[in-house]
């Protein structure tokens, strides 16, 4: 298992130029350090650029200014070296491949031989508790199961870093809480660093070692909350007093950060910037 990666963002900003206009600033300069093995959540109102920031870390979008280092290398090199796996809100599974072949996709591209691929796929299916579903097609699985396949695929080549963009956003609350617990278990077993984007405060607090709070557009880091709730976290953790305190603290930071209203986990409110 490779050593978990660190991520270092220095003065990273993103500006979209539009012909015949002033353009849009999605991200104001951001400085952030993610330590190896951490679980960091990015939370903020809709449109604050947290997904853009995630994609900048993954070199899927280029920053307008600033430096991004992943695993000690520029983000571009880290991508070429396959240092990270990514999970989107949509499972993005390939309809024409079975579950097993979906998970083995990155392994095929890395040139692994068939036997090695098969044994790793079996391992991953056990990890996400989907043993027995190898031959199924994505449309035969529920949303939660598809997302688990997506996670298995992201981890199949044991990346040092896992980027997750609101992976449980489309699921119901029960499934979501259960998958949260599973994700923590998987995190501890694989030992990678995770950067996690979400708009749910309880999810961010439950999962993370640190929560990074962002403002409305143009996105800025307006606060970082250390989550000192001990591991391993269980269902009961959600009912501890310290948990509620931290949730409240995050909510306060969000409110102060220029958001028109506080984010509730049950509601997603669209935030308009005051001009």
């Amino acid at each position, binding site marked *: 298992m490779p050593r978990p990666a660190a991520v270092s963002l220095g003065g990273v900003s993103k500006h979209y130029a539009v012909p015949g206009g002033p353009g849009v600033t999605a991200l104001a300069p951001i400085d952030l350090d993610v330590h190896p093995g951490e679980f960091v959540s990015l939370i903020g109102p809709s449109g604050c650029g947290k997904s853009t920031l995630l994609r900048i870390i993954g*070199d899927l979008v280029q920053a307008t200014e600033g430096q991004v280092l992943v695993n000690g290398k520029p983000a571009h090199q880290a*991508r*070429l070296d*396959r240092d*990270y796996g990514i999970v*989107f809100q*949509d499972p*993005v599974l390939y309809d*024409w491949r079975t579950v097993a072949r979906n998970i083995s996709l990155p392994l095929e*591209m890395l040139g692994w031989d068939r036997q090695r691929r098969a044994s790793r796929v079996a391992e991953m299916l056990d990890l996400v508790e989907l043993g027995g579903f190898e031959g199924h097609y994505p449309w035969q699985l529920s949303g939660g199961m598809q997302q688990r396949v997506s996670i298995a695929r992201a981890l199949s080549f044991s990346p040092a870093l896992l980027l997750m963009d609101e992976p449980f956003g489309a699921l119901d609350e029960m499934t979501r809480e259960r998958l949260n617990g599973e994700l923590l278990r998987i995190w501890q077993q694989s030992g990678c660093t995770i950067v996690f984007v979400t708009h749910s405060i309880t999810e961010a607090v439950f999962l993370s070692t640190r929560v990074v709070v962002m403002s409305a557009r143009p996105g800025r880091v307006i606060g970082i909350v250390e989550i000192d709730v001990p591991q391993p976290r269980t269902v009961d953790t959600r009912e501890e007093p310290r948990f509620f305190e931290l949730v409240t603290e995050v909510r306060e930071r969000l409110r102060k950060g220029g958001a028109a209203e506080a984010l509730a986990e049950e509601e997603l409110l669209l935030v308009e910037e005051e001009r």
Partner: protein
Amino acid sequence: MLARRRVRGVLAFVTVLIGLVALWEGYRAIGQSTGLTWPFPVNERSMPHIHHILGQLFEPSRRNGPPLVTVLLQAALFTAREAALGFVLGASTGFVLGVALAHSRLLERGLLPYIVASQTIPILAIAPMVVVWLGAGLFSVAIIAAYLTFFPVTINTLRGLRSADPRAHELMDSYAANRRSVLWKLRVPASMPYLFTALKISAPASVVGAIIGELPSSIQGGLGGAILNYNQYYITSPASLWATNVVAAALGISFFGVVLLAERLVVHRAPEHVA
């Protein structure tokens, strides 16, 4: 349960078949008894009995000759060879062209309007000239079939290659995939449903192209020649021409059926929902 649905399906099929035959014979009976002349005069010549048409197949095709069905099946095979060759040529050209256009915007902008315009040339109208120019034979007729095939295949391949979810592309980026991998692992599989839609249109069109191609020249061996031949004998034996058309119809349907079968094997998608 599935068996019961299958039985019901077969029953419906047979019922409709009987219904169509009844419609034919019924219209004929009414038409003849009332002396109907609009839209066309109804008599033994214009609407032979269904059983006459089918029976004619087993009559000798000419004095002391082989039964009609043998002659027609040989003609069908002749035409099928031309159509199949043209179909394969057209489909492969179309596919390669589609891939080329998908990769180069310049090529697309330069060539696509003409590819579209090429279809405004009624190829069936210039079939006589093509066959005369290239010399009547298997190849020249196949060219006509190929022309009819390549356009839908090109357009649909182009659309299909572009149809993949942008996030599936991002996933490929995160694997630092090269263009060849993206093409063969993502874009081509994604284009399969579109490709088969085009092939389902082109397969019967190839048959039409082959038949028309045989008409003007001295190609006697195929269904086109048979149609012209039995058209001359329509006064004495209308059932023969009808029988020829039945065989031509069967040829078209079987070409379509082969593509349908291939689609079932290659494309595994969720069934379309119909309200």
